[in-house]
């Protein structure tokens, strides 16, 4: 046996062993390549398609003010010229040849790129993604052309009244490091960026040991791992970016604040936001947070009855967004101008009741766990979407968090939920944003007992 053949055989055994030893539930199997790239295969043979997704631990949280919005701009540049594909036109042509549909998204703590195609394009599709992630050219001309496209996206966001509410609240909740939560970014930074800045982002974050490759759909783990090894092994490992580029901790909200946002809207929206747990530091609170959110979403809950069935709110939602660098807790309600006063009072009363041990029943606690478990089951039916869910959890919390998520939810007790509320919500500072039409604004100021231009105040309970 030649040395090379022996090496190949050993490699093959390693791949097979790895695949089996890491075999997990939900049809998910994972392993690491030597360069640190985590490869995740999600088997689902319901339709003859495969989605190839690349997830990178990048996004707003890595952005100091001079990079505000550039993770997102980088995401746009992914779909342009690289060393193998000379232009965006050629890029699109190659997509069509593969029968592929594609997209990318940027969020606070994750950037992902994905293409879906018939399964016989798998190897070519993976090569295509390898070229795109390892050898972007960032041509000056393409970058200049892309700026108005991104600001066009910005314009569309600004045309939506809720964008203004979100931004106004976020700027105050994350007051010290707002750029690290501002995914869409700063227009000026976007309009003046250079290819050099794009290269800096690439060198820092687009390294295999900060990325995951996920193959989902009509693919077997062995086949996926072998192709990943063949195609992605040449991507060179670099130092862990977060050893050098530390993410600063968001300081607490210094005092309760109110901000009124005037836009041409018909209903009134209220958004209370607190700084919630970071999944890496307090994972137990994140499970309690999710269970509580799903207790409150039940139609049988006190929360729903007191707020929606009473007629005070048109809709209401209490949620936690899981992040590794402080996720927000949001209480959102919509009401009519006539009901605003009653609704905001009812919301406060409800918050005060939440830590009462009898606020929810044992059945509602169990139902919340059932709902979360079944929702996962429903989500897994759609391989092309489920891949994004897995990628998100990989980037934000690590795959182990997701694989053990249901087990940990089932351990959540009434005391865990009360602790979560006491640690992050009850008597903690918040920001309240109210979205209203200019016509109703005066009434809102009056109800909240604040004056225009003096937007800092405790809300009267």
């Amino acid at each position, binding site marked *: 046996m030649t040395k090379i053949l022996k090496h190949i055989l050993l490699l093959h055994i390693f791949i097979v062993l790895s695949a089996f030893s890491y075999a997990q539930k939900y049809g998910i199997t994972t392993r690491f390549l030597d360069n640190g790239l985590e490869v995740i295969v999600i088997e689902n043979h319901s339709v003859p398609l495969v989605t190839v997704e690349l997830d990178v631990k990048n996004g707003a949280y890595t952005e100091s003010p001079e990079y505000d919005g550039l993770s997102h701009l980088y995401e746009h540049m992914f779909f342009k010229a690289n060393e193998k594909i000379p232009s965006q036109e050629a890029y699109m042509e190659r997509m069509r040849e593969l029968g592929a549909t594609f997209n990318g998204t940027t969020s606070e703590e994750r950037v992902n790129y994905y293409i879906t195609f018939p399964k016989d394009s798998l190897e070519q599709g993976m090569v295509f993604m390898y070229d795109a992630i390892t050898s972007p050219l960032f041509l000056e001309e393409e970058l200049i052309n892309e700026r108005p496209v991104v600001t066009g996206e910005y314009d569309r966001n600004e045309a939506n009244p809720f964008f203004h509410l979100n931004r106004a609240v976020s700027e105050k909740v994350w007051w010290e490091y707002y750029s690290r939560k501002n995914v869409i970014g700063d227009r000026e930074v976007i309009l003046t960026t250079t290819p050099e800045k794009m290269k800096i982002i690439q060198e820092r974050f687009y390294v295999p040991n900060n990325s995951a490759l996920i193959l989902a759909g009509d693919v077997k783990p062995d086949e996926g791992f072998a192709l990943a090894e063949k195609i992605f092994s040449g991507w060179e490992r670099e130092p862990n970016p977060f050893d050098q580029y530390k993410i600063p901790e968001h300081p607490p909200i210094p005092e309760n604040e109110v901000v009124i946002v005037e836009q041409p809207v018909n209903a009134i929206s209220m958004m209370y936001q607190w700084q919630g747990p970071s999944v890496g530091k307090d994972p137990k609170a994140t499970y309690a947070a999710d269970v509580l959110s799903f207790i409150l979403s039940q139609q049988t809950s006190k929360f729903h009855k007191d707020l929606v069935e009473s007629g005070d709110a048109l809709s209401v939602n209490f949620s936690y967004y899981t992040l590794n660098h402080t996720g927000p807790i949001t209480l959102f309600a919509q009401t009519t101008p006539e009901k605003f006063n009653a609704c905001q009072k009812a919301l406060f009363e409800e918050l005060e009741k939440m830590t009462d041990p009898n606020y929810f029943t044992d059945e509602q606690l169990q139902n919340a766990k059932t709902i979360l478990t079944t929702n996962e089951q429903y989500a897994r039916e*759609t391989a092309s979407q489920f891949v994004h869910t897995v990628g998100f959890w990989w980037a934000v919390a690590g795959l182990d968090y997701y694989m053990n998520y249901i087990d940990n939810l089932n351990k959540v007790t009434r005391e865990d939920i009360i602790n979560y509320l006491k640690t992050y919500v009850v008597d903690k500072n918040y920001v309240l944003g109210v979205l209203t039409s200019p016509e109703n604004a005066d009434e809102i100021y009056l109800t909240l007992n604040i004056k225009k231009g003096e937007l800092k105040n405790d809300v009267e309970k």
Partner: protein
Amino acid sequence: MMSKSKLLLLSSVLFCATVIAQDIQSFEINGLKVILKQNTASEIISAKMFYKGGVTILTEDQAGLENLTLLVAQKATKNYPKEKLNAELESMNSQISSTSNLDFSSLNLLCVQQNFEKSWDIFSDIILNPLFSEEDLNLERNKVIANVKQVNDNPDAYLQKIATQEFYIDHPYAVSVNGTEATLSSFTIEDLSDFHSRRLKTSEMLLVVVGNVSKSDLEEMVNDSFGKLERGNFKPELPTEVKHAEPSIKIVKKELPTNYIQGTYSAPSRGTKDGYTMLIMNSILRDRVWEEVRTKRSLSYAPSAFYRANFSNYGAIYVTAVEPDTTIKVMIAELEKLKSNPISESELNNKIRQFITFYYLGNETNQAQASNLAFYELSGVGYSEAKNFFNHIKKITPQDIQNVAQQYIKNLQFVMIGNPTSLEVSTIMY
């Protein structure tokens, strides 16, 4: 002789079609047509009861009545008072919802297999025995009115609303699916109850189930639930095709950071020969406007082309742009190119290949498959035609694409929301 690439393409197309077509059956119980697709690989079951006719069975004064009736019906039933109904559904996380559109409405059940029988009991009781309380009516009415008003707050939703109104003037689709503040405010408990009774006839309904359910089990459940319902003799009439004799533009002034624009034209209904060709043509058009408007000229983030799935149908070009004049001209040039130059064989083959992906992405879930089968059935094409999708697609030629473009893309009805600083109206009258 057929090229090697075309042969390869067709073999994969045929293979795919076989996978999606298996195990679809149909039977009738007491005049209720049932379509069942057994999917033994899935633990999730989707059951949808469709009500035929959509807005075409409503008068202008009844706008929003079917949608509101279905929403209130889900709140409480004779055998499941509100608290019990919510508690049972939440304990299983079985999800019941409703949807209404221009052509039909549906009550939808999604559950895991082990809860199917118990969930079906609630689902069928909502269909048969809703309580319609005054309190529930008022709560749901207020929510729907708020939603109807809020459509005007979101430029995209507002554009769709105005574009649909303008396109379907003097047509049965002119009746709003969700209703208006005036119609919704006028409905009483008696209106909902009477409407529900009038619709509860098996000839007006269609049941589609996708999941791991045997035919015999489903037959028994359907017979127990709906075996004694009145049949009626409902025969829905498909709405006529819209034909605008002239192009037009309606500008709605609004202070926005950009302009929202849509140009709408008559299109064949899906499932017809021209409909399949239009699907491909529209997809090519979408790629081309993306490339010309976004990639080459950076004029917009979101240029696109639509082809809707209404029984009386339309296609459209859509864009948001700060320079509408320049942008629309580029898009119209692409429409003209489709009419005057046949596309190449390779562009067509690549597009058909891409359609394998689009098609399966649209059929990944049991719910999506149920909706797809119902669409074929309710549009008059017949559910069994769903399996012939790829057979139709593969026969399309470049000449077909050009013919369909020439036949349908004309007399565009433009709607623009925003405040354009310059606009040469005459040059976009197409």
